[in-house]
C-alpha cells in the first residue's frame, strides 16, 4: 500500500475504474448475448412460432433487460444517497426497512383496499417505505443517527414488517401467490409499462442527485462544519432522504423486493476506485445496474425452459450477508452502545423478595391463562369437566410458550453477558434466523421432515450461525458492535436462503411461513415436554457458570487478567445459547424479541447479581410469552394470531421506547 501512495493516485484510480467498467460491460454484454442465443424456442407451427418469438423477444426479454438495468441503477443511486446522507456505509433500502415497509403497505393495500392499491401502487409503497424509515430514524435519533443503531433498528423494523406481511399471507390462505413472488422480487415483464414508468423516475432522481452534489459533499462532513459552510442541514438531509425512499419504493412497487443491491453497488464502486461523492454518484448506479442485470441473466440462463432458477430478488439478497461482513471494518460506531452496559438504574435492596414476587405473579398468570377464555357464548371461567376437557389444548401450548419464553430469556441473558452488550439477543444476533436456514435445508433435503428432524436441523443452523459469528467477531476481539453487525449479516444471509424456498409457493413454503409466524397452536405433549426438559437441562449448567457470567461483561482483557479462559468459556456459553434459541424458535418462531426484552427488563427492575438476573430473565420471559399466547388466542377468536408475531408486536414498541430514552440503555 505504501508503495502505491507514491504513484500518482488519480491516474491509477482512473485506470482501475475504467478497467472495472470495461470488465462489467463485457460481462453484461456476454451474459446477454448468451441469454439471447440460449433462449428457449416456442414450439409448434413455424410461422406462428416466429411471430410469438418476436413478441417474446420485444415484449418480454428486452423490457426485462431494461427493467433490470433501471432498477439496479435506481437502487444503486438510492443506496449511495442514503449512505451519504446518514454517513453510514451500510445504509440501503434493505437495511433501513424501506423495502419491507413498502411491501407491508402493498400487502395491506391488496388485502383491505384493492381500489387504493390499484390507484397507485407506487404511492402506497412510498408511504410504507417512508413510515418504516421514519421509525428507524426516530429510533436512532437520540444516538445521533449512529450507524449501528440504525442498522439494528432497521433490521427489527424489517422483521416486524415482514412478519406482519406473512400473517396477512397466512390469513388469506394459499391464494396469496402474488405476494409470495413479490416478496422476493421477480423481474419478469410482459410489456414496456414498467420501463416506461420507472425510467423517467430514475432520470429525475439522477438529475436531482446532481443538483444536490454540493450539499451531499458537505453532508459527508460533520454537522458543525456542514452548517458553517451554509448548508441548510436538515432540509437538505430530508430532501435527499425523501428522494432515496421514493426511488427504492418505486422499484419495490414495480418489481418487488430486490435485496441489497443498494448496499452492494456503492461498495463495489468504491472498491473499483470511485472516491469523491461525484464519482460514486455516477459509478454506483452503473454498478447497481450491472449487478442486477448479471444476476437476472444468470437466473434466466440457469433456469430450465422459460422458468427462472430463483426469483432475482432472492438471488441478490444472498449478496447482502457476505457484503455486510466485508463492510464491517469500515463501520465506525460513534455512540458506543456497549459503554454503559452495566449501568444499573436502581438497586433492589431485597432481590430475593422481588424474585419471589415475580414467581408468584407468574403463577397467577398461569392460573388466569389456564382458566379464563372466550367461548361461543361469551367469556367463561372454565371449571369442572370443561376445565379438564380444555386442559389438553391449553396446557401444552402454555407450557410450550412459557418454556420458550424462559429459554429465550436465558439465551438473551447469556448473549448480553458474553458480549457485554445490552441489546444482544437471539433475534438481533441472527441466531434465530440461522435456525430458519437450517430448517430450510431440512425441508429441501427431506421434503416433509418429522418434528425431531426439524428441531435438530434448526439447532444445527442456529449453532452454525453463532459459530460463524464468533469466528468473525473473534478477529476484532469480539467487540460489541462488531458482533451486532455480524448478527445482522447472518440474519440477512439466512433470510435470503429462507426466501428462496418461500418463493417456490408450495407446501414447504407454507411450513416455513408457519414457522416464521410462530404459532403454539399445534403444541401437544411433544412440544410441552421438549420445552420443559430442554429448559431444565440447558439452564441448570448456567448456575455453575456464574463466575464466567459475572466476569465476561467486563471485557476480554480484564477477564483474562483474573485468570478466565475467555474463548472456551464463551464457546460453551454460545453452544448453550444457540441450543436454547433453536428450540424456542421451533416452538414460537424466530421473531418474538423475548430474548431481548426479558433480560433487559430484569436489569431495569434492578436485579444486579448475575444469578438474580438470570432467574428474573427466565421468569419474565416465561410470563411475557404466556400472556402473549393467551392474547393471541383470544383477540380475534376463533381465529388466532401466531404468538411469536404477537410478541414481536409487543417487543417492537418496547425497543422503540428503549432507544428513545435519553439515558443510556
Amino acid at each position, binding site marked *: 500500500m505504501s508503495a502505491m501512495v507514491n504513484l500518482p493516485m488519480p491516474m491509477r484510480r482512473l485506470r482501475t475504474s475504467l478497467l472495472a467498467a470495461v470488465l462489467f460491460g463485457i460481462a453484461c454484454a456476454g451474459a446477454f448475448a448468451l441469454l439471447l442465443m440460449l433462449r428457449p424456442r416456442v414450439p409448434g407451427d413455424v410461422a406462428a412460432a416466429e411471430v410469438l418469438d418476436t413478441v417474446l423477444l420485444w*415484449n418480454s426479454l428486452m423490457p426485462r433487460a431494461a427493467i433490470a438495468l433501471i432498477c439496479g441503477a435506481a437502487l444503486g443511486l438510492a443506496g449511495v444517497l442514503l449512505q451519504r446522507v446518514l454517513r453510514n456505509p451500510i445504509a440501503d433500502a434493505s437495511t433501513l426497512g424501506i423495502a419491507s415497509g413498502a411491501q407491508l403497505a402493498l400487502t395491506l393495500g*391488496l388485502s383491505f383496499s384493492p381500489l387504493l392499491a390499484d390507484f397507485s401502487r407506487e404511492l402506497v409503497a412510498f408511504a410504507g417505505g417512508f413510515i418504516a424509515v421514519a421509525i428507524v430514524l426516530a429510533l436512532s435519533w437520540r444516538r445521533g443517527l449512529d450507524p449501528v443503531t440504525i442498522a439494528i433498528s432497521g433490521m427489527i423494523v424489517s422483521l416486524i414488517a415482514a412478519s406482519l406481511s406473512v400473517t396477512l399471507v397466512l390469513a388469506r390462505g394459499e391464494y396469496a401467490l402474488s405476494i409470495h413472488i413479490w416478496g422476493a422480487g421477480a423481474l419478469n415483464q*410482459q410489456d414496456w409499462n414498467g420501463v416506461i414508468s420507472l425510467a423517467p423516475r430514475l432520470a429525475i432522481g439522477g438529475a436531482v442527485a446532481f443538483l444536490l452534489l454540493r450539499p451531499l459533499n458537505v453532508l459527508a462532513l460533520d454537522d458543525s462544519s456542514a452548517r458553517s459552510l451554509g448548508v441548510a442541514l436538515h432540509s437538505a438531509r430530508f430532501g435527499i432522504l425523501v428522494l432515496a425512499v421514493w426511488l427504492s419504493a418505486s422499484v419495490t412497487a414495480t418489481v418487488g423486493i430486490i435485496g441489497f443491491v443498494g448496499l452492494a453497488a456503492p461498495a463495489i464502486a468504491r472498491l473499483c476506485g470511485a472516491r469523491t461523492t461525484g464519482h460514486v454518484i455516477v459509478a454506483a448506479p452503473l454498478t447497481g445496474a450491472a449487478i442486477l442485470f448479471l444476476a437476472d441473466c444468470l437466473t434466466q440462463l440457469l433456469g430450465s425452459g*422459460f422458468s427462472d432458477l430463483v426469483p432475482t430478488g432472492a438471488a441478490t439478497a444472498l449478496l447482502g450477508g457476505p457484503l455486510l461482513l466485508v463492510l464491517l471494518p469500515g463501520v465506525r460506531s460513534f455512540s458506543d452502545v456497549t459503554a454503559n452496559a452495566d449501568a444499573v438504574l436502581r438497586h433492589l435492596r431485597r432481590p430475593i423478595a422481588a424474585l419471589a414476587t415475580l414467581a408468584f405473579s407468574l403463577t397467577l398468570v398461569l392460573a388466569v391463562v389456564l382458566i379464563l377464555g372466550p367461548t361461543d357464548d361469551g367469556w367463561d371461567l372454565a371449571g369442572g369437566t370443561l376445565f379438564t376437557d380444555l386442559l389438553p389444548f391449553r396446557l401444552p401450548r402454555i407450557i410450550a410458550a412459557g418454556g420458550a419464553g424462559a429459554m429465550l430469556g436465558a439465551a438473551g441473558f447469556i448473549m448480553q453477558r458474553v458480549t457485554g452488550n445490552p441489546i444482544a439477543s437471539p433475534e438481533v444476533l441472527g441466531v434465530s434466523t440461522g435456525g430458519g436456514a437450517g430448517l430450510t435445508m431440512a425441508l429441501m433435503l427431506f421434503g416433509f421432515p418429522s418434528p425431531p428432524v426439524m428441531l435438530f436441523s434448526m439447532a444445527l443452523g442456529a449453532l452454525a450461525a453463532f459459530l460463524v459469528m464468533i469466528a468473525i467477531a473473534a478477529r476484532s476481539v469480539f467487540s460489541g458492535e462488531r458482533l451486532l453487525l455480524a448478527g445482522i449479516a447472518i440474519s440477512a444471509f439466512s433470510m435470503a436462503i429462507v426466501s428462496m424456498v418461500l418463493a417456490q409457493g408450495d*407446501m414447504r413454503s407454507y411450513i416455513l411461513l408457519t414457522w416464521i409466524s410462530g404459532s403454539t397452536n399445534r403444541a401437544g405433549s411433544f412440544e410441552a415436554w421438549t420445552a420443559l426438559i430442554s429448559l431444565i437441562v440447558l439452564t441448570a449448567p448456567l448456575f455453575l457458570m456464574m463466575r464466567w457470567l459475572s466476569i465476561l461483561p467486563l471485557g476480554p482483557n480484564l477477564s483474562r487478567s483474573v485468570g478466565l479462559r475467555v474463548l472456551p468459556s464463551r464457546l460453551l456459553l454460545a453452544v448453550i445459547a444457540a441450543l436454547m434459541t433453536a428450540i424456542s424458535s421451533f416452538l414460537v418462531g424466530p421473531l418474538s424479541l423475548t430474548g431481548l426484552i426479558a433480560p433487559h427488563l430484569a436489569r431495569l427492575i434492578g436485579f444486579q447479581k448475575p444469578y438474580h438476573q438470570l432467574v428474573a430473565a427466565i421468569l419474565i420471559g416465561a410470563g411475557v410469552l404466556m400472556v402473549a399466547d393467551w392474547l393471541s388466542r383470544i383477540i380475534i377468536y*376463533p381465529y388466532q394470531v401466531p404468538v411469536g408475531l404477537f410478541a414481536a408486536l409487543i417487543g417492537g414498541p418496547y425497543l422503540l421506547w428503549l432507544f428513545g430514552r435519553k439515558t443510556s440503555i
Partner: protein
Amino acid sequence: MSGVPQLTRRTMLSGTAALFAATSVRAQATAPRVATLDWALLETLLAIGANVVAATELRQFAQIAVKPEVPETTVDLGLRGTPNFEALRFSRPNLIFNSNFYTWADDLMGRIAPVESHAIYKLGESPYALAERVTLAIGERLRLPAGRRLIEDLSVRLDRYRLRFAESDRRPVLPINLGDARHYRVFGSDSMFGEVLNRVGLANAWTGATSYSATAPVGIETLASMPDAWIVLIPPHPADAYRALTGSAFWKALPAVREDRVVTIGSINPYGALPAASRFADFLAEGLIRVRNG
C-alpha cells in the same frame, strides 16, 4: 372379470342405501355431528348432506370453493393452519374427519371425538380415484346414500361430457390460476383438474407432473410454448393482475387469445374433492361450448 362381484356389491349397497333414504327424515335428528379441518372433506361432507357442526376458514371457503353452501349453524374454527381446538370442543362433534395434511392434529382432536383419517392427495396417486374412495367410505360411515349417488352421478356426467368434447376441436387445455400479471400456477395431469380433463377426454397442455397440485409459479412467457391450447383461467385472481395481463402486447399476441381460446370459469378449490371436480367439469363444458357458439 371384476364386473360381476362389483355389480353384486353395488346392488346390495344401493339396496341398503334405499333403505336408509326412506328413514332419512328420522335419521336427521340423530345424525352424527361431524367436524373437519380439511376443505376437500368439508365439501364432500356438505355435498352428501352430513350434519357438519364445525369446519375451518368458512369465510374463505365461501369465496373460493363457493359451493356447496355452508349452513349458518356451522362453527368457524379459524385458519386451516391454526384451527381453534377450543372452538372445536365447544361445537361438540361426535366424529371428526381428518386428512393427511393435518395428521399432526390427530392426537389433539382425538380427545374431543374419534378421528377418522382419509387421504385424497397423496404423492403418485390419482386424487380423483382417492376422492371417490373417500366419498364412498364417508357415505357408508355416516349411512348417507348420497355419497354413492355423488360418485355415480359425476361419473355419468363426465362420460356425457366426454362424448360431447369428442366432437369438439380436441385441442389440449391449460388450466391455470393467475398469481400476478407475470406469473401463474398450472395444474398438471396429477392434479384434480388434470384428472377431470383426462376423464372427459381432453389433453392437458401442461405435460409435466406437478406433484398432485399446482406447480411453483411459472413465468407468463411459458404460455407462448403452448400455442395450440385452450387457456382456462381459474379464479380467484387479483383484479389488477388480470387487467394488466390482458392489456399487454404479449397476451394479445398469443394464438389462444387471438383465436378466442381463453375461458374464465368460476372459482374452485384447487385441493378439492368430487364437488370441486364436478364444478370444474361443468364450468369446462359450459365455458368451452359458450365460447365456441360465440
